[in-house]
């Protein structure tokens, strides 16, 4: 019996040991599985944490910085000149104007040269909720080759006197017509129209005066603004020392009074007609040497069509009538105050007509015709000037453009090409023009 029990016990022992060993293996495997599961959970948590962290960082990058968000979310966008990042510092901008001139006339000024024609530095900002200050300094290369430095404009604007008037005090471009009140870099052409050059002495920018200008927005159901101004305009240079003949430049000088009626009618949602009449009464640039009174009337007519997308058509015309009074004949250089001799009245006329079509976000084309009778004692029909200029402009960005302008001068039979690059850096604004 004992013999029989012993093998059974041994079998049972072996079987038990095998079972025990198998059970140990199972638990080890289970432990390994558990461990892997735990590792996986830990890894998952770590990855989720990392993803969460990255998402948080991404959101932070996309949204306002948290420390500033409370204030920024409650504050409107600051106006130009009110940037809160740089308190008390006005808007500062620089405009550069580079012009290359190529001509088949050997007498042409700055022929076959690329020149930095003009730099403008503008400082603009608010002084009070209703008062703005604008100072525009410039360095301008005149045709004599010298750079002229100065204050192009520097004025305070009292924006809503009696909710109907605006007062400018200081120095600014004379409010005459359309082109004269616009800075050169804002125009649709690379040079000044002949009539602006001959009647106003415009060599890239119109004449500026020191004084005041009051503009009244009339309470009519359409836009009608009436402006009156009193100015002291710097005497335009026209004589060199020892030079006896008058240089052929002419511009308003000394005391001048201006007025402008500016009206606009919306013909439809997309069409607008602007009509303006301006007048100037004052002295011509030779007033220091002899009697030189001038009256200037300018009528401007602009049609604008705004098409779909970026399409836009402008047809802009300005007509100038100049009445200049100078001493007659050879008696040309008396004391202006004491002069009692006869006076010659010179009636002169000039115009330009511009059509400009923007056909794309970046491209526009234009054509300008110029005509002017020179404001000097010569027969107007024998000494008039006229030209035609096709213009192509590539607006690279909001604040830079490249322009190609070809001009044919009908009188000198001169062909010239202007290549202009205008750029702006920094926030820059102008009133409604």
């Amino acid at each position: 019996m004992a013999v029989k029990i012993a093998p059974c016990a041994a079998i049972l022992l072996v079987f038990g040991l095998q079972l025990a060993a198998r059970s140990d293996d199972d638990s080890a495997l289970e432990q390994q599985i558990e461990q892997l599961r735990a590792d996986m959970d830990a890894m998952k948590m770590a990855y989720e944490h990392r993803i969460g962290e990255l998402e948080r960082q991404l959101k932070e990058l996309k949204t306002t910085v948290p420390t500033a968000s409370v204030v920024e979310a409650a504050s409107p966008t600051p106006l130009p000149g009110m940037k809160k990042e740089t308190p008390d510092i006005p808007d500062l901008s620089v405009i550069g104007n580079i012009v290359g001139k190529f001509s088949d006339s050997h007498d042409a000024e700055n022929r076959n040269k690329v020149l930095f024609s003009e730099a403008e530095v503008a400082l603009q900002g608010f002084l009070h909720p209703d008062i703005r200050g604008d100072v525009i300094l410039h360095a301008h290369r005149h045709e004599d080759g010298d750079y002229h430095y100065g204050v192009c404009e520097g004025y305070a604007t009292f924006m809503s006197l009696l909710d109907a008037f605006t007062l400018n005090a200081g120095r600014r471009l004379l409010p005459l017509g359309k082109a004269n009140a616009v800075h050169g870099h804002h125009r649709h052409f690379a040079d000044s129209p002949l009539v602006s050059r001959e009647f106003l002495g415009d060599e890239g920018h119109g004449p500026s005066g020191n004084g005041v200008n009051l503009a009244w927005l009339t309470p009519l159901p359409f836009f009608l603004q009436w402006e009156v101004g009193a100015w002291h305009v710097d005497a335009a240079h026209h004589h060199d020392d020892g030079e006896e003949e008058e240089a052929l430049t002419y511009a308003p000088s000394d005391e001048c009074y201006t007025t402008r009626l500016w009206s606009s009618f919306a013909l439809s949602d997309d069409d607008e007609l602007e009509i303006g009449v301006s007048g100037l009464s004052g002295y011509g640039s030779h007033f220091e040497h002899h009697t030189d009174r001038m009256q200037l009337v300018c009528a401007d007519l602009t049609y604008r069509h705004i098409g779909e997308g970026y399409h836009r058509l402008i047809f802009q015309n300005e007509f100038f009538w100049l009445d200049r009074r100078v001493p007659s004949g050879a008696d040309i250089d008396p004391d202006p105050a004491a002069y009692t001799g006869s006076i010659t009245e010179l009636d002169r006329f000039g115009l330009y007509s511009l059509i400009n079509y923007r056909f794309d976000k970046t491209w526009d084309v234009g054509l300008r015709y110029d005509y002017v009778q020179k404001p000097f004692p010569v027969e107007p029909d024998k000494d008039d000037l006229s030209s035609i200029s096709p213009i192509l402009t590539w607006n690279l960005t909001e604040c830079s453009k490249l322009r190609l302008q070809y001009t044919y001068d009908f009188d000198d039979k001169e062909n010239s090409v202007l290549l202009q690059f205008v750029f702006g850096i920094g926030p820059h604004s102008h009133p409604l023009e």
Partner: protein
Amino acid sequence: MKLLYAFFCAMLVLLASTTGFAMDKTAVVTTTSDLANIVSEIGNDRVEVIGLCDGSHDPHDFEIRPSMVIKVRKARLFILLGMGLDQWALSLIDASRNSGIRFGTDGYLDASVCVTKLEIPQGKIDGSMGDVHPYGNPHYWLDPKNGLAIAELIAKRLAVIAPDDKEYFKANLAEFKKKLTAKIEEWERRLAAFKGTRIVTYHRSWIYFCDCFGLDVACELEPKPGIPPSPSHLAKVCETVQGGKLGVLLMEPFYSRKAADFVAEKTGVKVLVCANSVGGDEGAKTYVDVIENVVNAVCSALEQQASGDQEAD
């Protein structure tokens, strides 16, 4: 001289009549047609609203005209998008001499104050980065949830301008919010299947829309904001589209289709020209229409792409 005297007298009579405008309704001017539409939803027949720039024009590049001065002069409330997008409006406000709508008054409302702004640039900004807006990406109205916030802001400000109509505005606001919220839920349901889908856009103007509905913008046709597409950049865009199997290119109607068609021809991506503002196309008559049309177009294009992929598999 007599003529001049008569002219002065006539002008004085006109001056005396300056305050003679009858203002039965609250006159509101907005820079964009979307804001105008939301104002009309809230103010309905108690307001007279004019939106200056509609969806057929680029609000970055809008040309103001003198005739608009008269509209702005009569306004008791002037609403801008802000963030530098519609800065052109400021010279209109100045020219109007309307001191009631100047910055800092109740009549001046910058709608961007009520939204979380995306992509506020950090550090120096200059032209090398393109036309980057220093206060962040300004196309926030394309997130319809921001539309809710804008409506609430406008209702509150209208109540300040015309307190007698406060309850009327409040009721209209509730109605508008109910309508828009239901639409947002519907749009979210429809676009839920496409969460994480990458699309291409022309300008970086659809960020808020994509953020709202979980879409991603893979790249833009413009190499930098406001800079026209260049051939080398378009080649990169084509690589991105082909590599990522992107199916949708979303753009506004005022941009030229030339670059988009080039990419479509090379890659097969579907070009969707959608108005991003009221008036941008015939179907975009209201703010809700604008978002709905974009959702419809995107859903339809992505569904087509998904079914095409299934057939290919």
